[in-house]
């Protein structure tokens, strides 16, 4: 605003100079008549509005500009024309909407200052409006607001507790998560030193540490601490701190605090669990292995290295493991793995390895297979333990039983010889009664022999040493022979034989005879009150089929699978068991299976049972040991 003093010195200046000043001025200036008509504008004006003043000179009236009206600027302008100096707030001018102006482009944010020029009498002779293009400033302001809004959103919505504090630790900004965590309100924290969240005795140390951290060279870090909220709740928190740097100097610290109490607890539980597992594995002398079936990578725990007596630094691959397997067990192992990968069987083989030092060890391993969504195997995770000792004990036991049964047979042999001779002697001398007694004794000796034989057979089966022969014989003859023999042991039952297979069979005659004996004597044993036992044989496709049917106590459905298990003995309706070792069906089942046949039972409790087995006419007996 020109003052009187200034105007005096100015009046000495040439008017041309003023015109030059006016036109060269970088500030957009426009001069209006008191009635509002634009009469002059400088170059800066033309540059701002991108139009030539000559195009609107005399035609444009600022008092009637509709855009100004629309922006509610008109009152400001009118005040200037009434004699006031007015600062016009910035508005968005869109020049192309102005009546008299055509062709000008874009919009500008423009603020302006409008003032009247009065003559010496105070009459308004002109009004000047000077504009400032504040588009850039406005854009910057907008961006700032946007980013502030963004910041606020991020700041307040954060789940993590955040605090910004200055060099001394005074809280400059804090979010609601932080307040919630420590149990203080925003007002209680803002402007105070953050150390107030700590118990009084700790505050001094906390502030010291804070200052040290602030001064240190480190640009940031993480640390854990235990804190107690206002309400007394204890948390374990993890704090990430970093610094806000302005103009190259650290001005504040940003701390992000995360409640890791739960995570810590979980980790603790996991660690305890892991320690427990490791201890259990160690106590059980169990090693764990992990095989990725796709990449073929194999991982062994330390224990597995020990079990295989392989140095711990040796890299382990599946191929290397295979080289350790005993050649006799190779086929079995490959089949077991293949079946497990096809999800056909549980993987639990017992096998031998030959360690790099050349010793043989027995190992047992069991694993589970993981499959992907398409059912393809991806991983096998297993546990291995050394069973050499158990195997030795088992072998010793089996050897002992073999020897024992052998020994038992010796006195039985002579007993039987004496009994048979005596029976003969009594018969020849006509003493039928005594001969009968001896005959009964003989039958018991046969029974004893049979029991010893069963015990030995069961042991052989366990040890994989049950051997079978190949005999070619007429099947029906065997069936009749055995049936006749067993008929002699009972007068309460009638054995009805329908042997109709008419086949010659390639199998172990004595063993198949053993199976028939077992089934028929069981039929006799388990039907004490009924009379008929029907034994049939017939031929089907490449097989002979034998069934032994009784009308005895029967077997409940739940137990029907179990009868073929070792040691299984059926209990009668009153709960007590029938005499016998429980080995007969187990051995029979084994014999039939070894021939490539099948054995099963159908039964109704109270009505009776039918035991059936099938035997391939050309029995497929694999030779050699099996485990």
């Amino acid at each position: 605003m020109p003052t009187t003093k200034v105007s005096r010195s100015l009046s000495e200046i040439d008017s041309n100079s003023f015109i030059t000043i006016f036109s060269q001025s970088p500030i957009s200036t426009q001069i209006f008549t008191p009635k509002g008509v634009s009469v002059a504008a400088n170059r800066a004006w033309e540059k701002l509005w991108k139009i030539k003043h000559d195009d609107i000179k005399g035609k444009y009236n600022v008092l009637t500009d509709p855009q100004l009206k629309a922006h509610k600027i008109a009152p400001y302008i009118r005040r200037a024309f009434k004699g006031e100096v007015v600062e016009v707030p910035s508005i968005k001018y869109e020049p192309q909407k102005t009546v008299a102006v055509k062709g000008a482009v874009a919009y500008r944010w423009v603020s302006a200052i409008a003032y009247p020029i009065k003559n010496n009498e105070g009459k308004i002779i002109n009004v000047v409006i000077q504009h400032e293009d504040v588009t850039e400033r406005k854009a910057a302001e907008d961006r700032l607001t946007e980013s502030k809004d963004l910041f606020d959103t991020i700041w307040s919505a954060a789940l993590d507790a955040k605090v910004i504090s200055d060099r001394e630790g005074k809280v400059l900004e804090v979010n609601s998560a932080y307040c919630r965590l420590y149990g203080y309100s925003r007002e209680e924290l803002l402007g105070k030193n953050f150390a107030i969240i700590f118990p009084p005795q700790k505050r001094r140390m906390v502030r010291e540490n804070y200052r040290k951290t602030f001064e240190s060279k480190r640009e940031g870090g993480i640390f854990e601490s235990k804190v107690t909220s206002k309400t007394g709740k204890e948390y374990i928190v993890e704090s990430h701190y970093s610094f806000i740097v302005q103009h190259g100097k650290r001005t504040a610290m940003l701390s992000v605090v995360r409640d890791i109490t739960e995570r810590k607890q979980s980790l603790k539980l996991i660690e305890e669990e892991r320690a427990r597992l490791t201890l259990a594995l160690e106590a059980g002398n169990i090693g764990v292995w992990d095989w990725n079936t796709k990449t073929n990578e194999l991982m062994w725990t330390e224990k597995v290295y020990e079990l295989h007596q392989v140095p711990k630094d040796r890299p382990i691959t599946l191929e290397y493991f295979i080289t350790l397997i005993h050649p006799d067990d190779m086929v079995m192992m490959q089949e077991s793995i293949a079946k497990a990968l096809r999800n056909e069987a549980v993987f639990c083989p017992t096998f031998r390895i030959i360690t790099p030092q050349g010793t043989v060890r027995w190992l047992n391993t069991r694993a589970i297979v993981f499959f992907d969504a398409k059912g393809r195997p991806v991983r096998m995770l297993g546990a291995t333990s050394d069973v050499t000792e158990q195997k030795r004990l088992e072998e010793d036991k089996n050897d002992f039983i073999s020897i024992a049964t052998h020994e038992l047979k010796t006195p039985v042999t002579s007993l039987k010889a004496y009994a048979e001779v005596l029976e003969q002697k009594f018969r020849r001398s006509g003493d039928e009664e005594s001969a009968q007694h001896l005959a009964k004794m003989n039958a018991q000796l046969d029974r004893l022999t049979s029991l010893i034989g069963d015990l030995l057979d069961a042991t052989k089966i366990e040890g994989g040493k049950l051997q079978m022969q190949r005999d070619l014989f007429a099947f029906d003859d065997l069936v009749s022979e055995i049936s006749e023999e067993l008929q002699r042991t009972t007068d309460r039952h009638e054995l009805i034989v329908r042997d109709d297979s008419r086949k010659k069979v390639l199998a172990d005659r004595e063993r198949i005879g053993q199976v028939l004996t077992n089934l028929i004597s069981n039929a006799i044993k388990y039907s004490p009150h009924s009379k008929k036992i029907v034994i049939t044989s017939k031929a089907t496709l490449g097989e002979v089929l034998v069934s032994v049917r009784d009308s005895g106590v029967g077997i409940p459905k739940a137990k029907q699978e179990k009868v073929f298990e070792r040691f299984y003995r059926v209990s009668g309706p009153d709960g007590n068991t029938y005499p016998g070792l429980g080995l007969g069906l187990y051995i029979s089942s084994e014999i039939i299976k070894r021939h490539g046949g099948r054995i099963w039972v159908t039964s109704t409790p109270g009505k009776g049972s039918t035991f059936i087995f099938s035997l391939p006419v050309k029995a497929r007996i694999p030779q050699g040991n099996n485990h």
Partner: protein
Amino acid sequence: MKKILIADDDPAICDAVKMMLEMEGYQVGTTVDGATIYRMESEMPDLLLLDIWMSGQDGREICKYLKARESTKHIPIIMVSASRDIEKSAREAGADDFLSKPFKMADLLGKVALYVNR
């Protein structure tokens, strides 16, 4: 009268089988020591009942020996054992037949009759 020699390390078996065979009209000799068979020069039996597992001796070895010797290879040998599985190796050693213990008298007498009259 046909002469039968029983070799078994259990004296009770020797005694009982001797009784059994004598009742059938055979002349019977027994031995619990397989080594004596090696020293057999004269008075050869018409049939030998040979136990496989005798203390200190393997009956199969004795069988092989006898079957190889000119003077004894004609003697029929029936091998006896408590183990049935051994039959194959018994026959391979040259035995004419095999009997598992405990045996039925009828079976024993039948086999003896079969081979002693050859």
